[in-house]
Every structure is written in structure tokens, then in C-alpha cells.
């Protein structure tokens, strides 16, 4: 895997993580934002400028791909590269969580 991509995206920001996580299903920006709001009980907000900028950047870096357009809204989906990055991130978060609970791995 591209080392630059890994360096930029691991560890990921909360915004980046939720966007990538949501895009395991096809979605547009505002959709993602609403989903994240529900998932976090309103704890995580992603504003439009940040959403637009992050989607553009992730698309350029090949983590997500544009699928189709619906009434001026662009729908995206995670790519294989994006899924790999997300999996690395998920493993890291799981380890973090286990360690925070005192469940050290032998």
C-alpha cells in the first residue's frame, strides 16, 4: 500500500473515519452527515465545507469513488484501497478499546 496514503490517513480524524465508514454503502454528503448525527447521538457534526473538502480529498486519494449523480448530489462509495485503510483503522481502534479496558494482549 502507498506509504503516503497510510501516513495521511492512519490514524484518522473522527470526521474522516465516519465518512469512510458510512461510505461502505453508497451515499451523498448530506446523507453521511445525517447518518453520523444519528450514530453519535448528535455528538459528531460534519459541516458542509468540511464534508465537501474531505470527500474531494478522499476521492483524489482513491479512498472513495464517485458512483453517480442524483439531482446535483454526488453519491460516493468506498474503494478497495479505502476499505483496506478503514480495516487498519478499525483494528487500531479495537486494540485501543481493549487496552483501555485493561485487556492486554499476550
Amino acid at each position, binding site marked *: 500500500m502507498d506509504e503516503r496514503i497510510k501516513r495521511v490517513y492512519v490514524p484518522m*480524524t473522527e*470526521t474522516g473515519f465516519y465518512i469512510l465508514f458510512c461510505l461502505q454503502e453508497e451515499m451523498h*454528503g*448530506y446523507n453521511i*452527515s445525517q447518518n453520523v448525527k444519528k450514530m453519535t447521538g448528535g455528538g459528531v*457534526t*460534519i*459541516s*458542509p*465545507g*468540511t*464534508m*465537501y*473538502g*474531505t470527500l*474531494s480529498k478522499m476521492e483524489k486519494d482513491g479512498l472513495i469513488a464517485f458512483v453517480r*449523480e442524483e*439531482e*446535483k*448530489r*454526488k453519491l460516493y462509495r468506498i474503494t478497495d484501497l479505502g476499505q483496506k485503510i478503514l480495516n487498519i483503522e478499525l483494528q487500531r481502534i479495537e486494540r485501543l478499546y481493549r487496552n483501555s479496558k485493561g485487556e492486554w494482549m499476550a
Partner: protein
Amino acid sequence: MTEKKIHKAFTISDFEKEEIFLREQHRNGYELTRYTGLTCYHFKPCEPKDVVYRLDYCGAEAGDKEEYIQMFRDYGWEYLFDRFGWSYFRKEVSAEEDLEIFSDNSSRLALVEKVIKTKMLPILVLFLCCVIPQLSNSLLIYGTGLKIFWLVLFVVYLYLITHCGLGLLRMKKKYKTGGS
């Protein structure tokens, strides 16, 4: 009541002050309609309301303007117009609404960096490669009129560069260290 015009100059590092100025106008019953010339804001009378104004700079990717605006509309932002690369948005204040267009400091930092790269640097280059050489030339050879012209331009540029440079660097520092 008729349209009101206000002449006010905000430099490239004062966009957050500009947002506050526009919000105050709306609270006093004047909503922004147009922006013409270098400094002229046009307002029309409206019901006084608390409405926030937000400016984004070169936010949209090339050829993606409509999708960009649609994204802001989805979030409840009204798009007004573009001016010198800045996009103007507004939204009425309410408890449930998100009143920011950026939710993290890295996107605020990205905006400041874009302004530095596409506005501040050209000004600096113009200053170093045109204003300074022309000023030194004019002091040696040109007549009084031109001397004064280049001297005034030199002072204006020097002020702009110091004011904007410091302002932008201050913002950069604020968003880098995680201030709000």
C-alpha cells in the same frame, strides 16, 4: 425604505470580521443583496433577524460548482453569490441548526492556506518585483508626480502586506494549535 449601500473595505485576512458585519446588518433589518466594485455592499430592507453569514474561499472543485452549492443547500444554507473567489452563504440562527460551515480546524486551516497561496503570495510578488523596483526607479529618474504615485503605492502595499500577513499567520496559528 429603499436599498442601502455601504462602502466598507475588508482585506483578505478580515473575512471573519466581514461575517460579523453582515450579521449585524441583518439584525438591524438589512439583508445583503449584492456586492459591487471593490468595496460596495448593497442591502435591502428586511425583517430584522439573527442570520449568520459565512464565507468560503475557492471551496468548489473545478466544474463542480452546482454540486458544491447543493451540498450547502442540503444543510440549510442559502447561497448568495461569488465575489473574488469568495462564496457567500447565510442561514437563520436557531438552536437546532449548525451555524458553521467548517466543523474542524484542519478545514479552517486549509482555507487560510488557500488565501495565503492565491491572494497573499501574488501581492507579495507584485510588491517585490514591481512596486519596489518602480519606486527606486522613480526616485532616481521620474518626475515628482510619479515619485508620489509610487511612494503612495509602496505605503499602501506595505500596510496591506503587514496587516494581512500578520492576520493570516495569526489565524493559521490559532487553527493549528486547536483554538476555536
